[in-house]
Every structure is written in C-alpha cells, then in structure tokens.
C-alpha cells in the first residue's frame, strides 16, 4: 500500500486518497478537501504557495493518524498535503477517514483537520494584487498557550 500520510508537489487525486482507506469492513468514508479560495474577507487571492518541513510534517501527520485510531477504534485515516504553487480551486489538502459507521467518520475527519492546523509544519504564502505574506496562526492564537503546540491533543477531547 502507498503511504497513508504524504506531502506531494503535484496535483492531488481524491480517488487515490479515498482508495487508501477503503476497506471491506467499513461502510462510511468522510473526506475533507481544502481548496484555494479566491476571496478571503473580500480580498482577492491570486495564488498560494505552500512550503513544508517535509520529514517532520509526515511524522506529525502520522502522529495525528495514531491519535485518530486511538480515539476512534476501527478507523483508518489517510492525509495528503500539497506543497508548491497552487492556483484558485486547486486542492491543498485531502483527509479521508473510513469507519464502520458514519458519525465517527465525520468526527475523526474534523479532528484531524484541527490538529493539522495546530502541529503540522506547513506554511502558506498568500499572493494578492498588492503584495504577498506568509500566513501564520490561522487559529488566531497570538501565541501557543503552552509555549508550543499541543502535541498530545488533550484539548480536543
């Protein structure tokens, strides 16, 4: 099997990520697809650039996978994040979670997305008509409350 957690610099395939979590004993697959949005608070984005600290990002994605399997036994999760330059509507991230039953698939998927925004070393640079900026801190924490991102996930229980 191809690896469940991946960082790629080429366009992402939804079918490919879903395929990784499809299992005979699971009836539900929830996916989240993050795409490049043109307008944020009325401001027009021209394109985005994503950069990753790739080996650590994959380790952190694997850690999120472990957290998800611990919290939702019987679940399988795969995450692929894109890096490089992305145009509007291109896919930046795909999270797929399969579970025997539906409710857990949604919950685990949402949990994984929250955790990505907390601990995975990936950065986004916005390109607007009037400039560029590396965006940090989308969760609007002005500093990590404990001086570093929670790497255990307690606050999400």
């Amino acid at each position, binding site marked *: 099997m191809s690896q469940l957690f991946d960082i790629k610099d080429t366009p992402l395939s939804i079918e490919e990520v879903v395929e990784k979590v499809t299992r005979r004993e699971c009836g539900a697959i929830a996916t989240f697809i*993050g795409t490049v949005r043109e307008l944020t608070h009325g401001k027009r984005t021209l394109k985005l650039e*994503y*950069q*990753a*600290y790739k*080996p*650590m*990002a994959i*380790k952190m994605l694997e850690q999120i996978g472990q957290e998800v399997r611990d919290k939702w036994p019987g679940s399988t999760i795969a995450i692929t*994040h894109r890096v490089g330059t992305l145009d509007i509507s291109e896919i*930046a*991230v795909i999270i797929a979670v399969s579970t025997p039953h539906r409710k857990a698939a949604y919950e685990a998927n949402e949990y994984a*997305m929250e955790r*990505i*925004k*907390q*601990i*995975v*070393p*990936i*950065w*986004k*640079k916005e390109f607007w008509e009037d400039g560029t900026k*590396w*965006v*940090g*801190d*989308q969760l609007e*924490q*002005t*500093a*990590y409350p404990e*001086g*570093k*991102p929670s*790497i255990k996930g307690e606050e999400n229980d």
Partner: protein
Amino acid sequence: MIKILLFAELQEEAGTDQVEVDKAGVTVNEVKSWLQKQYNLTALENTMIAINESYADENEVVKDGDVIAFIPPVSGG
C-alpha cells in the same frame, strides 16, 4: 556542529534555508538569540522549535549533529 533549518518568512528574511554552526552544548534559546542577531530576524518571537523533527523546549541543550528547526506558526490545511 549543528544544523539550523529556517522556513517561510524566516527563510526569506535570512536569505537561506539552512545554516551550519558550531553551537553544540548551548541551549536552544541561545541558538535563537545568536540567529536573531546574525540575520537581524524580526519574526522569531512566536516561533516554535523542533530538534531532530520533534517539538522541543527552548531550554533544551543542543548536541553535536542535532538538526534545529525554527517553526513559525503553521498554516497548512
């Protein structure tokens, strides 16, 4: 020797994505202060530290061969 990795705006400010420097035996915090002065960095304040691909405390002492990554607030997803 230790290897320092820089990302996002830190990389652009410093004009490089990695630095090798003879800083084994000092704390992460001291490496950070050195880096800030050396490259006149403005964005180090809210930065997290990883040693050898794991988040680490600023008081940890770096060893020869360690890879120290300065990690600005992440914005993936």
